[in-house]
């Protein structure tokens, strides 16, 4: 049993945890980073954001290559070597985790591998392969993240997988059911479809990606109508594991009458926080029954020297939110009067095409009784979108009519996620429609659709009929 005394222990080395640890180290705080995995980066790098993007890249190129045949260039059917695809994905992950490991050493952050549990308000016990380590700390940041929700009525079976299982890519199933029409399910569905699987998606609500606005999802629905078989307002009532497959029975609006056979079922119904796994209560930290830890705007729990960040402090469960929270927590510990005080947090579904939104959705603006106006620029009117064969897209900006300031924005279409940053910056800086419309966007780009949407609101659009034109 070894013992460590430190100023700060960070529990969890995902994007939030390692960012907090690095920031703290850079601020001169003696920091220990604890994680169950041998590699740093948490779910995001190891079994989440990053590997799924590697596979989505592959999927996108397959799809575009196929599509090119209609423009006179044919490559023939793709030959897929699954082992090589998996190796490519793993090499992406290992490149990044190695980089992190190097930066950890460079910053003299001590990495302790194992499961951490609090044994007191200032002590943490880490159990790992190399034995037990007791860490006595002045401050702690809990950054233990979340894990996929599993459904109790679905049998334990190798063919039932979650996002982690899907990323392992053991094989390419002939037919796969994606249970849950959210971001993770649709991203993995996109990958497997490109690799040759037939995909069914079942969603309990009346819309895929329920958090996004209907008009945005509508454009997405149009583009995927030939790829996925989507069953909305439908739920799975049972899964029977038989030798030849998993037989799934449904109930609801678009439910098939008979159970349907699948080679694999991907459960992607959400993630649950890991707040209950590290005995935080022993340290005096209040954790609710679902595993969320309540924090203030400085990321402080009810125990003043213990902080919590990331998925386990609440929605949205997004890496970039955790990173910023981690910075705030580290800075507060170092004595700075910083607060987690963003106006908006962006969300992106890296499907094909991508969906991306930031700030208020129209739905939220309506609920909050804001006097708003949305201005949408359809990509069918964009020269670049037509040239790039990407006309299935829409850029929508939402403005507060009292101030003309931008309060939200959403996009669907190729590279939508890459373009969202401008809208986020505009919201944070308090830009109004005129500011955006007068910012010269390069032509031809997909990105200029943002300027054009602002011009629609301003009544100065010339690439579309102008509803606000002063007619004489």
């Amino acid at each position: 049993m070894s013992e460590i005394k430190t100023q700060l222990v960070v529990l969890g080395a995902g994007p939030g945890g390692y960012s907090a640890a690095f920031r703290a180290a850079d601020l001169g705080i003696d920091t220990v980073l604890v994680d169950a995995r041998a590699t740093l980066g948490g779910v995001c790098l190891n079994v989440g954001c990053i590997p799924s993007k590697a596979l989505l890249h592959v999927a996108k190129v397959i799809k575009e290559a196929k599509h090119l045949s209609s423009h006179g260039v044919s490559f023939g059917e793709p030959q897929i070597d699954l082992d090589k695809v998996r190796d490519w994905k793993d090499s992406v992950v290992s490149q990044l985790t190695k980089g992190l490991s190097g930066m950890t050493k460079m910053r003299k952050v001590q990495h302790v591998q194992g499961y951490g549990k609090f044994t007191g308000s200032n002590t943490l016990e880490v159990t790992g392969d190399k034995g037990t380590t007791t860490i006595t700390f002045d401050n702690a940041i809990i950054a233990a993240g979340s894990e996929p929700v599993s459904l109790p009525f679905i049998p334990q079976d190798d063919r039932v997988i979650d996002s982690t299982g899907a990323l392992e890519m053991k094989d390419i199933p002939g037919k796969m059911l994606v249970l849950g029409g959210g971001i993770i399910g649709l991203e993995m569905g996109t990958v497997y479809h490109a690799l040759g699987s037939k995909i069914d998606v079942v969603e309990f609500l009346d819309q895929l990606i329920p958090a996004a606005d209907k008009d945005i999802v509508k454009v997405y629905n149009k583009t995927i109508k030939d790829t996925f078989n989507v069953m909305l307002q439908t739920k799975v009532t049972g899964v029977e594991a038989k030798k030849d497959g998993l037989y799934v029975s449904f109930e609801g609006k678009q439910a098939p009458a008979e159970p349907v056979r699948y080679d694999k079922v991907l459960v992607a119904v959400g993630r649950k926080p890991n707040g209950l796994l590290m005995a935080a209560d022993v340290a005096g930290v209040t954790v609710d029954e679902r595993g969320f830890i309540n924090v203030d705007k400085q990321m402080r729990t009810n125990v003043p020297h213990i902080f919590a960040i990331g998925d386990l402090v609440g929605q949205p469960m997004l890496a970039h939110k955790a990173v910023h929270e981690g910075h705030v927590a580290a800075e507060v510990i170092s004595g700075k009067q910083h607060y987690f005080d963003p106006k908006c947090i962006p969300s992106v579904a890296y499907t094909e095409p991508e969906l991306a939104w930031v700030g208020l959705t129209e739905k939220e603006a309506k609920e909050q009784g804001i006097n708003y106006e949305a201005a949408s620029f359809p990509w069918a009117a964009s020269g670049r979108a037509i040239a790039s064969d990407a006309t299935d897209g829409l850029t929508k900006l939402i403005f507060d009519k009292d101030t003309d300031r931008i309060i939200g924005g959403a996009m669907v279409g190729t590279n939508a996620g890459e373009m969202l940053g401008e809208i986020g910056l505009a919201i944070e800086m308090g830009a109004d429609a005129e500011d955006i419309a007068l910012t010269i966007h390069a032509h031809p780009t997909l990105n200029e659709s943002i300027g054009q949407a602002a011009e629609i609101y301003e009544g100065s659009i010339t690439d579309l009929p102008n509803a606000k034109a002063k007619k004489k």
Partner: protein
Amino acid sequence: MSDIKDVLVPDLGEDSVEVIEICVAVGDSIDAEDAIVTVESDKASMDIPAPFAGDIAEICVAVGDKISQGSLLAKISAAATTAAETPAAPVTEPAQEVAAPAALVEEVAVVPAPVTTSAVSIIEVTVPDIGGDENVEVIEVLVAAGDQVEAEDGLITVETDKASMDVPAPESGIVKEVHLNVGDKVSQGSLVIHLEVTSTTTEAAPAPAQAPAAAPAPAAAPVVTATDTAPVAAKAPPVPHHPSATIQATGKVHASPSVRRIAREFGVDLTQVNGSGSKGRIVKEDVQSFVKYELSRPKVTSATASSVGDGALQVLASPKVDFSKFGEVEEKPLSRIQKISGPTLHRNWVTIPHVTQFDEADITDMESFRKAQNVVAEKRKLGFKISPLVFIMKAVADALKAYPTFNSSLSADGESLILKKYFHIGIAVDTPNGLVVPVVPDVDQKGILELSKELMEISVKARDGKLKAADMQGSCFTISSLGGIGGTAFTPIVNAPDVAILGVSKSEIKPKWNGQDFAPKLMLPLSLSYDHRVIDGALAARFAVHIKDVLTDLRQIIL
């Protein structure tokens, strides 16, 4: 009810010691100071005593375990009655002067066991961050068990060397138990009371889809109240804990993330800040000037300190005195003019380095001339009398021409002098409502009779309260004459943006040596206060002499 409290290993003076004996068993009833375990270091063995009485709920160590400071030793279920008998002992400071290693007590953060229904819970109210002070004294306990309190009601008053402040109730509820007495020393985290709250919010689980709501503030911001006893004004008030720091900058605020961050650091509520950027955007400089303004603003609500100017001059607060203790009193509000002129006078007094030059003018000849002219004026039925003040005004105008530095103002940035080519003179007039300073323009171009008439008219207007703002603007120099009342000298305050002021006291016949004998002369005392940043002493003396010479022999003016 009973709380289960953790007993942690206190500072033993050793990093790690071995448990050699466990002196109690689960279920045992023990008194404070009874030994829980015996430990052995390489130097000695010692008992670790219970910090309070209660029943042993759990023993968390075994013989042979290595323990160190902060290790969980045991859990003790403390009976509430027992706790009440020894109220402060377990929860106040770790009492380092006590030689025996009294075990540290850590409250289980949220007291479990809702009392009767799920809607009622008991929360602990602890002393919030009181600006880093430790061991502050409780000077008043404002509540008793059974009291109903509202959120923000004061529970106890503590006194630091800077201020006294109330520790407020975080929520409304019923005081179950008070853990402090007057005279106790407390620090951040000390237990104040147990509060029974009937709430739906604390029990209800937060909706997962929402961004995390601010946790039920574990420590509400202290409410600073004025101190009765004179405090030692030393440091700036603890800005980081300004109550507005907790106000959330809403989406309505037009400020970028970096500006929102600096506002948070200074505890500035951005909704109070006017943006100077395009379309009302709040830029960094707006936050800085807001802070500067707030620091320099005369403090109306807080009597702890007042400060003036960008240099943030801090002065002691005047002590609050209850005069009715000494006899009958009556409170009369300041007049409107007093309220307006007070802060201005205060600013001028504090920001202008004043020097006052005293002199006397022989006005024997002037007075005989004036009296003769008044006889003429009466005969001609002019309807006014010529006062000595008019002659003084003419003399001052002449002196201003001779010494242009006196007819100037400092530029706003303090880098240059603005010299005036006009000669408007302000006259301080005593009115029933307070002091006002009407301005007589172009004194250099007017004769004695015209000035006398104008002075009479403006004085009547002033006493009737009919002066307009324009009548009181544009002065170059001010004269304050108390000659009609009495006094030998006084020190007038410069009426900024003027750079000097002339005070006039009562003239008196004095024996003056004329070279052969003493002759009776009517002498007029002059008090010239000036802004030493602009005018130096020699110049002021010359200026005063110039006035004196003119008054002594009015023919000087036509030279």
